[in-house]
């Protein structure tokens, strides 16, 4: 597939292509800046490529080069299975033409590149910063931006346009930096501008949506993210490969285990490292545990948003049993840091299987209780069916993945489409919805809990004995015997401890099916002990970018129900 698509591109755009590469099986093409839009449009429309999903856009900074920035487009086709990485280079101050007219998911992705690197996108409809504050000076991910340099920014950003605000009557004069003080006297319309968040009970985490309401109907809305931005990607460039693992816990803190697996999966891809079978099976178990816990949280809180409080406890009680297992396994509940490059932090403890099976029966009970309470409940159906509905085409256009995409009827799941960790050998189904509304999303997630339990059951049955850590000396510490008695062992130990794992220079995109969609790590290594560039592709970033479009014309209550169902985790959204 890879070779064929590269060939096709070469035939079509021979002169425009600077470099073609398929290192580690990732088809990668570098094109001239002027041809970016044309090539991407071709990739999208060409029947044999059909890259309908723009996963993410990443920037890379090489200050020593003349055209210092690389802009990397990660493409995926759900129909042909094509995986393509398209790159272009751009000098400081230059602009790349936007592709937000091809994929709506490009809108926020390009804003992020602009925010963190200062690369402008020509023709972008909304060229603002996204993760950093609008008063922030400089671009945080440039190599010449000092890692410790903080900036104090105070004035909140006005999201709605002045015109919209003029026409409405806002109460919170303070939060609009004095813009509204001239709004008195004549009243132009009956619209009301209102701030949902950043501290609002329904904004899980800290998100801000400013909505323009006509009565209770949302006429227009703008969202603002970045309240939890801590520049994980910059931190990653300053740490050794192993040291990054604890940071991945804090991306999606609801399913930290899955994040751990995703990160080491990507790094091991770069190292071309095989992990022992036992570790692979355990990774399957823990990532499915993460998925279950994530779905429990998402569905539980979503039901709270609709007013069904009790379900929250039924799910959280079940999750508590899961957390007990997690705590015994990793020593921590939330910040698990369970995986290591090449294996795991430690083996399963004695009695893990019976503990986990017990916890899973509790989960099954909770799921049964909740389904009984809501699935055929008239009020719940009225509140959820048709609310926040998204069509399959739109969902793909927005870059949705995971349960949210599957609820629209697309059966795309990385575990089936691009199996990893031996998922192809497990027997499980991919639940899909029909309407892509709040109801389908909840039911999809609930069914995925069942499927994950099936996978865990099979994994527990086949769990082989053996080591949990790869013996590969590039990543594993040598046995003590060698360290004490041989110079090679001693040096090996010293290098690993002081310099960390050396990942060969190159780049790769490793991805797995996270609880909320495709969770990918695009990694560039220069062969030193630290990553040169680490780009996370969080599933909820493109999903949340569509939120304001999704809720226009809906009522406030629907917007809140929709938001809960999308499962936006601020930790991975803002990184």
């Amino acid at each position, binding site marked *: 597939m890879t070779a064929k698509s590269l060939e096709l591109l070469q035939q079509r755009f021979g002169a425009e292509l600077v470099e073609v590469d398929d290192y580690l099986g990732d088809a990668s093409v570098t094109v001239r800046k002027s041809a970016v839009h044309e090539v991407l449009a071709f990739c999208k429309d060409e029947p044999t490529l059909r890259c309908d999903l723009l996963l993410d856009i990443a920037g890379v900074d090489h200050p020593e080069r003349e055209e210092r920035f690389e802009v990397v487009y990660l493409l995926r086709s759900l129909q042909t299975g094509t995986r393509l990485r398209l790159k272009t280079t751009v000098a400081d101050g230059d602009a790349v033409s936007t592709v937000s007219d091809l994929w709506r998911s490009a809108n926020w992705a390009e804003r992020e590149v602009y925010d963190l690197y200062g690369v402008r996108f020509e023709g972008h409809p909304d060229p603002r910063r996204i993760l950093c504050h609008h008063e922030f000076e400089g671009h945080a991910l440039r190599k010449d931006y000092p890692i410790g340099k903080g900036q104090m920014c105070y004035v909140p950003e006005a999201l709605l346009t002045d015109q919209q605000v003029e026409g409405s009557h806002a109460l919170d004069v303070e939060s609009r930096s004095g813009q509204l003080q001239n709004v008195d006297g004549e009243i132009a319309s009956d619209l009301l501008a209102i701030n949902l968040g950043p501290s609002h009970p329904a904004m899980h985490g800290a998100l801000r949506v400013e909505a323009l309401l006509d009565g209770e109907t949302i006429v227009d809305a703008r969202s603002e993210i970045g309240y939890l931005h801590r520049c994980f990607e910059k931190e990653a460039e300053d740490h050794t490969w192993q040291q990054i693992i604890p940071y991945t816990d804090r991306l999606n803190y609801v399913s930290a285990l899955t994040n751990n697996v995703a990160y080491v999966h990507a790094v091991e891809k770069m190292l071309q490292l095989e992990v022992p079978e036992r570790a692979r099976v355990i990774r399957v178990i823990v990532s499915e545990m993460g998925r279950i816990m994530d779905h429990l949280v998402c569905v539980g809180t979503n039901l709270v948003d609709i007013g069904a409080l*009790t379900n929250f406890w039924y799910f959280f009680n079940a999750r508590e049993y899961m957390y007990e297992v997690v705590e015994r396994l990793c020593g921590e509940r939330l910040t698990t840091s369970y995986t290591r490059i090449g294996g795991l932090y430690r083996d399963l403890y004695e009695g893990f299987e019976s503990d986990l099976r017990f916890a899973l029966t509790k989960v099954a009970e909770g799921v049964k209780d909740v389904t009984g309470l809501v699935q055929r409940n008239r*009020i719940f159906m*009225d509140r959820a069916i048709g609310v926040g509905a998204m069509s399959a085409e739109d969902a793909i256009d927005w870059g949705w993945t995971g349960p949210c995409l599957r609820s629209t009827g697309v059966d795309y799941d990385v575990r089936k489409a691009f199996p990893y960790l031996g998922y192809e050998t497990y027997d499980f189904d991919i639940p899909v919805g029909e309407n892509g509304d709040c109801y389908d999303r909840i039911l999809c997630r609930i069914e995925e809990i069942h499927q994950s339990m099936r996978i865990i059951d099979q994994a527990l049955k086949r769990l082989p004995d053996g080591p949990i850590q790869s013996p590969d000396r590039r990543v594993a510490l040598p046995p003590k015997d060698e360290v004490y008695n041989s110079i090679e062992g001693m040096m090996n130990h010293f290098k690993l401890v002081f310099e960390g794992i050396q990942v060969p220079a190159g780049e790769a995109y490793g991805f797995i099916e996270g609880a909320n969609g495709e969770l990918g790590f695009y990694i560039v290594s220069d062969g030193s002990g630290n990553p040169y560039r680490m780009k996370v592709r969080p599933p909820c970033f493109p999903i949340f970018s569509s939120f304001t479009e999704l809720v226009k014309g809906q009522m406030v209550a*629907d917007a809140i129900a929709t938001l809960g169902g999308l499962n936006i985790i601020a930790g991975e959204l803002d990184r």
Partner: protein
Amino acid sequence: MEAFQQMLSQAGWAQGMQPWALSGLAMLFAGGTILGGVAVGAMFFIWTERKVAGYIQSRYGPMYVGHFHGVLQSIADGVKLLLKEDIWPTDADKFLFRIAPLLVFTGAFLSFVVLPFGPDFVGASLDIGLFYAFATSSLVVMGVIAAGWGSNNKWSLYGAMRGAAQVISYEIPLGLAVLPVVMSVGSLNLGTLAEAQRGWLWSWHLFNPIFFVSFVIYLISSLAEVNRVPFDLPETESELVSGYHTEYTGMKFAFFFLGEYADMFVVSAIAVSVFLGGWYTGIPAVDAFVPAPLVFILKSVFLVFVQIWLRWTLPRLRVDQLMYVCWKVFIPLSLANLFIYGLIRSMVG
């Protein structure tokens, strides 16, 4: 009140007092009793709510204060609320912000006067008792509006608007639902309505098919009237933060809280006297030796329990669905019910 006056006039220390002083004292006593009853009752309901919620959600609820299952939790909360700082939002409408909790609580409190706890155990046996009870709930609406407007907060205002629209809408099916019973008994006096259900269980109005429909409409509408799930739209914590009482703290908040639970009891008590046989147990022989107020209160508490039970079971409606249910389902239904009952009555005689 008359009973108090009589009691006082017989007491030794009150001999020789002016009649006006005597009746004034009686008024104070009666008012104080009801106020105390309302406050203690509401506290009890708050504790019940928390315990019931706990059991429904497979947790414990309050367990420590008062040693036995946290019985004194509400008192501890009350003390806490008393000691809390009284916060005024910037630019709040001082006057409205202050009177809102009073209006809400007064509205709830006034209704207690007409509740017939027993044949001789009623604050004031008004002939328009039912009508009066509905009238006092208007004050609650005004309180909600005052709170929403006075708080100078958009979420509060939205809560107030929802609350006002909801309560004035649901007053209509609420009133229409009880009319067949009023027609049948020929009185608006709650005591008389209860009296009409003397005898065996099946003489309760609940077991008449027409009145049963009324009862169901009444019960659901009363949930909306007191802003309980699935109709808790004025305070929907996930949407409106906390609705009209978002900005309230301390005792002002406590007044809203007490008012809400007192109102729950009032609507339940009205349902009991109109539909569920008032203070009668349903077995004539038992009626003789069971104290009437006990039966009445137990039945009302049961209905309060039903409200709590529903709250922790159901999701909430959206604001347009709420209005739909009222105007397109309940009002036509209750009108049809009323019409059919009138038809039957005029044909049967």
